[in-house]
């Protein structure tokens, strides 16, 4: 028994697309990003899912908690991405319970990479492409630093020293974050939690100006981004009430 949950499944957990893959308009979900702040790592996403020029949903949750110390932000095909998230959630908990210890952070990062590589057929056909962001912190280590990784759709993993973004609106966001890293006062990495949360919402609103596939963030009607903080104690969701409070204070 080696704690490998995938070995228990009779078929690949993530759907494989064959030569006769359907040709309907695929569903996509954007935009997600993560950056370091003084409190840890902020990871955020909008709520819009689109199929071509159709807004499929403005209530989509794209930040998936994999366990108490790691999460994944999805961009790309939701069908494949959600299944990857569910597979990782079960795999990490299965490992922790069966082996009586948590999976290490490098192993979790690698596990997502392996799922992406196993999705090669869907990626090549362009139907099941997923380009996620992973954020996590080593469990049971109060001095551990949270880390951000981004992936290419074939499974290559890259550590983001400052920030990472994925999805169709991420170009705008990365541009702004790059600017702030160089000339910001304070820089994102120096921001308090309150400042970082406000910044995350503003970034998504900025991205929505240029990308129709980014949306669902409207502070004026209490619609905020999905935002989570990764820090040594674990993951903390920033509630709508907290975001509203931070937003109002920043607007004074």
């Amino acid at each position, binding site marked *: *028994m080696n704690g490998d*949950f995938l070995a*228990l*499944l009779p078929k690949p*957990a993530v759907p494989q697309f064959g030569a006769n893959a359907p040709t309907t308009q695929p569903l996509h979900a954007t935009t997600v990003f993560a950056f370091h702040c003084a409190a840890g790592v902020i990871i955020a996403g909008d709520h819009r899912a689109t199929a071509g020029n159709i807004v499929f949903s403005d209530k989509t949750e794209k930040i998936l908690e994999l366990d*108490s110390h790691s999460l994944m932000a999805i961009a790309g095909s939701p069908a494949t991405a959600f299944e990857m998230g*569910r*597979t990782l959630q*079960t795999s990490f*908990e*299965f490992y922790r*319970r*069966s082996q*009586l210890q948590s999976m290490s952070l490098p192993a979790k990062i690698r596990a997502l990479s392996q799922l992406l590589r196993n999705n090669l057929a869907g990626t090549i056909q362009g139907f099941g492409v997923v380009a996620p962001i992973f954020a996590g912190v080593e469990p049971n280590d109060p001095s551990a630093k949270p880390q951000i990784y981004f992936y290419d759709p074939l499974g290559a993993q890259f550590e983001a020293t400052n920030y990472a973004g994925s999805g169709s609106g991420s170009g705008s966001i990365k541009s702004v974050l790059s600017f702030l890293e160089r000339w910001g006062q304070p820089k994102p990495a120096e921001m308090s939690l309150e400042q970082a949360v406000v910044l995350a919402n503003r970034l998504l609103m900025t991205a929505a100006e240029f990308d129709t596939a980014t949306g669902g963030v409207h502070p004026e009607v209490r619609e905020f981004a999905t935002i989570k903080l990764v820090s040594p104690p674990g993951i903390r969701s920033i509630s709508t009430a907290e975001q509203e409070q931070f937003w109002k204070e920043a607007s004074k």
Partner: protein
Amino acid sequence: MTEEPYRWLEAIGNRREYISEQMKGATPVFAVSRPEGILLFGVGIGHSKVFEIYDRHGFAALGHPVDIEKLRQAAIEAAHVEGFNRSAKDVTLRRLISFALSTTLKNSFEQIFSPPLIVESIFAELGESPAHDVLVRVRYDGNHHYETSGVVVAASDRKREDEAAAWLRANLKTDDSVTRVAGLCLVVWQALADGKNLAELLPPDVLPTSVAGKTVEAALLDRKLPGAVQYRLLELK
């Protein structure tokens, strides 16, 4: 040997004797349903006796450590496959035990040319309230029963096991904290280990929290924990 029914029955009888002999010296484990959640309790020497199985499920066992591990792994695998293929709500003790675990134990016990699993166990499933908690006493031969009193003890001696459960039911009060319940479990654990008559046992004014040279294990399937995972270890001191 198996071509003659009598020889087979004799072999089965021998296995019961063998298991009984092997279990001597194994100390009991407890599960108690409380308003805060389900307390799982045991005392070990190096090997754990109390485990998490799934989001709302726990397990406590005594016996051979390797066999406890086999049963634990079987339970964890079955629960996670079910939870992944369906949902966490579909992982229920009734299905786990009926279709995965008790058949494994019974087959192991009756296959007389291979060693039996030497393990006595308790499985617990947390509900929304104590009335919805599920406690199951599972025996080495796959036999099992659902306990509705909220207190289950698994011990190597059935008579002492019943006495210990009755003592706990008689001495638990509705407003006892989980820490106090764990202390009472330790009192009755010590009495069983010392071979004391439980009819004369009274709860001490100061409840113990440790046993010299042994590890006291307590875990709570906590009704109030946020998130999916309800299992947490308890510090008694």
